[in-house]
């Protein structure tokens, strides 16, 4: 540490910073391009180059994307789909996270006959590609009378997400010393008291990891949305696809860019608010007893 502080211009330092700056640019350029162009007029985009600043800054693209752009036959912008995504993502994230923490608690602290097999099968769920379950899931949703409903979509995401959240919580709770559970049992705490009074208060970092992970996965999902929802019920990812593919007259790149930004903002916001917990939760799983 001391060494690097006293020699700020050592070659390795320069190399490290150069690499970091290059990496940052690679990741930032698409965002910058999107942002810049979302504030341009269509004429401006066609005339200038992609990286140039707008000659006139305008919110036209954003307001059109939000309230009047055409997504297929209807021309009401993406706002309805944006709220669809919210109404799908929030319950799906919360339910899958809560189920995951409960599963993780049982699997790590109350192992039962066959619990390891149960956990292995659940892990299997993490590796099943979306495409594989589409047909059986469509069939099941139809049987349940949930085809093409928001509830159905939430159910799909909960089922798919529980495998991941259980894995996260189980691995986190494994590092909580068993002696803590024993002490609580001797103190008279039962199954649920131990969960709510001892483990849940310890779980903030892993809750954040789960929330971010699940929010990103579910918000950004396209396939389930396009398959299991239709018309007015579709999430914003599907709506953007429709918006970009709707070809009436000239291509309005500013509107496309603005719509894409609108779709990306919530996940961005979640990362900014809870990101530090994400890093912390992923690296420091352990709890001192």
């Amino acid at each position, binding site marked *: 540490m001391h060494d690097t502080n006293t020699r700020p211009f050592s070659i390795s330092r320069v190399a490290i910073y150069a690499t970091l700056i290059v990496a940052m640019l690679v990741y930032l350029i698409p965002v910058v391009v999107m942002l810049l162009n979302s504030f341009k007029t269509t004429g401006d985009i066609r005339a200038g180059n992609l990286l140039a600043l707008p000659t006139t800054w305008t919110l036209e693209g954003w307001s059109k994307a939000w309230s009047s752009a055409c997504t297929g036959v209807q021309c009401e912008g993406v706002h309805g789909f944006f709220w669809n995504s919210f109404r799908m993502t929030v319950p799906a994230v919360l339910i899958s996270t809560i189920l995951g923490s409960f599963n993780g608690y049982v699997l790590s602290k109350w192992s039962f006959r066959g619990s390891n097999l149960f956990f292995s099968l659940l892990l299997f769920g993490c590796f099943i590609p979306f495409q594989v379950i589409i047909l059986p899931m469509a069939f099941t949703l139809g049987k349940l009378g949930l085809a093409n409903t928001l509830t159905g979509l939430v159910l799909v995401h909960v089922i798919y997400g529980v495998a991941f959240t259980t894995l996260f919580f189980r691995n986190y709770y494994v590092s909580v010393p068993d*002696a*803590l559970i024993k*002490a609580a049992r001797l103190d008279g705490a039962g199954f649920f*008291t131990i969960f709510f009074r001892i483990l849940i208060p310890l779980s903030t970092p892993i809750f954040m990891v789960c929330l971010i992970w699940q929010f990103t996965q579910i918000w950004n999902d396209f396939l389930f949305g396009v398959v299991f929802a239709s018309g007015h019920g579709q999430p914003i990812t599907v709506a953007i696809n429709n918006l970009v593919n709707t070809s009436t007259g000239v291509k309005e790149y500013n509107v496309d860019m603005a719509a894409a930004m609108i779709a990306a903002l919530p996940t961005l916001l979640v990362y900014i608010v809870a990101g530090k917990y994400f890093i912390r939760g992923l690296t420091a799983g352990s709890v001192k*007893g």
Partner: protein
Amino acid sequence: MAQLQLKDIRKTYKNSPEETLKGINIEIESGEFLILVGPSGCGKSTLMNSIAGLESLSGGSISINGRDISQVPPKDRDIAMVFQSYALYPTMSVRDNIAFGLKIRRQPRDQINAEVSRVASMLQIEPLLDKKPSQLSGGQQQRVAMGRALARRPKIYLFDEPLSNLDAKLRVEMRTEIKRLHQQLNTTIVYVTHDQIEAMTLADRIAVIKDGELLQLGTPKEVYETPANQFVASFIGSPAMSFIPITVTETDQGLAARVTGANRETLRLPLPQGLSPYLGRQITLGIRPEHISQPEAARIEHPLVTRAELTIEVTEPTGPDVIALIRLNDVAVHCRLNPEHPARAGEPTQLMFDMARTVYFDPDTGQRIG
């Protein structure tokens, strides 16, 4: 005030092929301080967890004051346990840690507060009550863990290596503290330790366990002076007892054995008459450091005491005495000498062997024979 009876306790973990506890029988008197010692993995924690009800038994029964509690859930056994890792609830303050068990048992608030203050003053942790466990030192965490156990006023306390995470000085302090608490509260305590000084100083009785079997149960004096077998003898005492292979022979002054020193010095060790069934056979002599000392006029006339000049190999001054290493029949043997006694490494010195206090083992079974 509770008497605890362990009757033929057996435990086999469901995922393990071997029996971990193989029939443990111990009766613990009311107010007794019982210490469990034994090598790592011998089943001490398993036994403690079984008493607490945290592990189910595969066989046998546990009774408190004559009432069989084998099927009673842990919270209703009225037992408190202090863990090696302390197991303090990390998100709760010290106060809440101590009060947790009382809150769960729905005691009135003012009663809980009174109990927390009582315990806190007994352990001198009042200034810590509003801190979190992570803000405390190891010794302070240890006190809080004891406070949590004390607050419920249980019938029986279980301590599973409570001091092993503390540094040496603090360990001695806490040891005294625990002894004082026991005298003050006069409750039944079962206590696991690796530290045999802890065992000797705290225990009313010591239970030595190996591989899930109880090898010996007795007062510290009994276990130290008349160990049931070679394992117990080697486990208790520091520096450890030395074991010398000897052959019992008959001389005109009674039974004796001839042993050879490092420089081919031979000496004749008198043996007690009780070993006559072993005449002509090889047995194991167990000799503790204090059995070999500087010659002392008061003792030297005893028929089973002898003296010899032997070469010292190494000396280790400990302060109150010097531990010297000699070699007998090719076995390194510790002697405990007065620091005033002239003993230097590589030089011969006069030593007194007190064969009235040594012990003897059958080399085949390891059992003590005299």
